[in-house]
């Protein structure tokens, strides 16, 4: 017992170390890559762009910004102090732009993930209990087809149908501009704007959750303790959710961490399609205007946030499931 818990912590620490190392690697890349740019990159990058024309002062400032060698530790300090440079297109500090957009992205991402996890989980549990029925087969087929549908496509299709053709939902924005609404009306308005991007993301995340829950549930229900529960005459709901489903929950948590980076990218793309004012739209505009400091900050901070999230999950996971300790000994 002593031995097992010691080995378990060792494995855990090495994983946490790996995550911190990859966070450092990201910061280092973001520090190093700009200094590898060829000398006259400013001309090369901006002369071909019809959207941006730099003044001579901005041009020299940009050159100076990317040719200064402050050292890695100074870069780290600046990062912590939220001193991420100035945007060339919007002429404001990058951190200001970032924190303006962040809440919308978080709202979209968190609600989409919760919804997709809940629906996927319940559908997966129900499907596994009705194995080989018509209901299960059609749900699995649906899930497989949806799994092959990238966010770009769902987003575009939903936009075309519900906002252009039917006109039920707004095509852009996160709230009605300049409408001074009461709090409740404002909430409704935000929800109305959120629906389409949220639906695109849920459709993209649902099938993975569903298929995974189903396979792990099928494993779980073949265990003897489920037979015991059935023999005791417990109700179907109780067996499904109190006995079986708990054990099928864990793969879902692991997978969530691994897929988080993809989810963020998916959210960026969907935000752009629905012109939702989050980080994705900011990134998209920054790319169009070749606003390097903004691009760098979004990429770096969102990857650090993803890594922090994975680390938290890794810690939570151990408390959720005592069996993890055994699994790590193999």
């Amino acid at each position, binding site marked *: 017992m002593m031995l097992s818990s010691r080995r378990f912590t060792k494995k855990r620490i090495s*994983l946490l170390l*790996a995550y911190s190392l*990859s*966070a450092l690697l*990201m910061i280092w890349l973001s520090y190093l890559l700009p200094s590898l740019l060829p000398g006259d990159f400013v001309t090369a990058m901006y002369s071909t762009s019809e959207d941006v024309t730099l003044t001579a002062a901005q041009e020299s400032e940009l050159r100076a910004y990317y040719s200064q060698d402050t050292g890695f530790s100074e870069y780290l300090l600046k990062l912590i102090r939220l001193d991420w440079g100035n945007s060339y297109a919007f002429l404001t500090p990058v951190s200001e732009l970032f924190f303006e957009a962040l809440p919308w992205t978080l709202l979209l991402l968190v609600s989409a993930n919760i919804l997709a996890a809940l629906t996927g989980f319940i559908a997966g549990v129900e499907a596994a209990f009705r194995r080989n029925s018509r209901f299960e087969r059609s749900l699995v087929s649906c899930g*497989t087809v949806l799994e092959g549908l990238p966010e*770009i496509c769902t987003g575009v299709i939903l936009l075309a149908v519900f906002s*252009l053709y039917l006109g039920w939902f707004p095509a852009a924005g996160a709230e009605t501009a300049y409408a001074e609404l009461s709090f409740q009306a404002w909430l409704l308005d935000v929800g109305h704007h959120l629906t389409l991007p949220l639906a695109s993301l849920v459709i993209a995340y649902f099938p993975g959750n569903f298929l995974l829950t189903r396979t792990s549930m099928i*494993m779980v229900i073949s265990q003897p303790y489920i037979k015991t529960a059935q023999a005791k005459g417990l109700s179907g709901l109780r067996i499904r959710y109190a006995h079986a489903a708990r054990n099928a929950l864990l793969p879902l948590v692991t997978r969530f961490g691994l897929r988080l980076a993809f989810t963020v990218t998916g959210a960026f793309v969907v935000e752009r399609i629905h012109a939702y004012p989050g980080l994705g739209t900011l990134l998209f505009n920054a790319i169009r205007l070749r606003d*390097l400091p903004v691009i760098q900050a979004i990429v770096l901070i969102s990857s650090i946030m993803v890594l922090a999230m994975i680390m938290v999950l890794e810690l939570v996971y151990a408390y959720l499931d005592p069996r993890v300790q055994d699994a790590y000994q193999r």
Partner: protein
Amino acid sequence: MHINAKKKMLRDPWLLTGGILFFFFATASIFGSAICPHDPSAMEFTPLSSPCAVHPLGVNDCGQDIFAGLICAVRNTVLFGLTCAAVSLCIGVLIGLTAGWFGGIIDMLFMRLADVLLAVPAIMVLILISALFQPPPLTLAVILALLIWPTISKAIRAQTLIVRESPHVRAAVQMGAGNSYIIFRHLLPELFPLYLIGFSGKCRMAMFMEASLAFMGLIDPGRKSLGMMIHYALKYYYLDIWWNWLLPPVLCLSLLIMTVTFIVISLEKMLDPRLRENFGESSA
């Protein structure tokens, strides 16, 4: 055993659908330029004209034939996916076999490196690199491959650890076979099913990422790609041309990703030894 697997594969509707669609896309991208007489980058037609016999999908805003562009875009996306998958498979298999066979410090070093790379959000690195340097797409595919091999090599390593203990490998060791002989003659062919799964999985991921990057405008605008076509068509969605300009790339991209997804899912069901033997224990 093998014959059974083959029969089962042919009977699986998902694999069949995936295979047929894949064949369709492969022919379209190989013989596409023969079907369509126009040059996809030539700007010589009336902009925004609607579909007719000469231009089956009409002409875009800068006077390029959309159908020719679509074929070219499918080819580029497929090529990106295949390149990335091939490179990451080679790296993943080599490292997985080496780590699994030699064990010890080599194993530890490679697997710790894999842990670090697994945590790195690959798409973020790609966004950063392509925003700063605007490299050619195939270079991007190779960079992506350098970041995503760990999942392949972890699966291969776990399976190598099992095969290593099997009687025929032990016998080969007894008879004095060298490390490279065992790795290339015994381990490499034995784990073949895992390569198929790894390859198609990475191919799917790479095509998906290429579409996202192109959609964000990070890949050279002169190169046709599905993501970029969606990006440009979306600007004109308020005109009545979304069904001949916006819809075809959306459909093609969905079908392309679906094709590979079907193949991945059915291959995993049939060939993954972890799913077949001790289904569910995925903590490798």
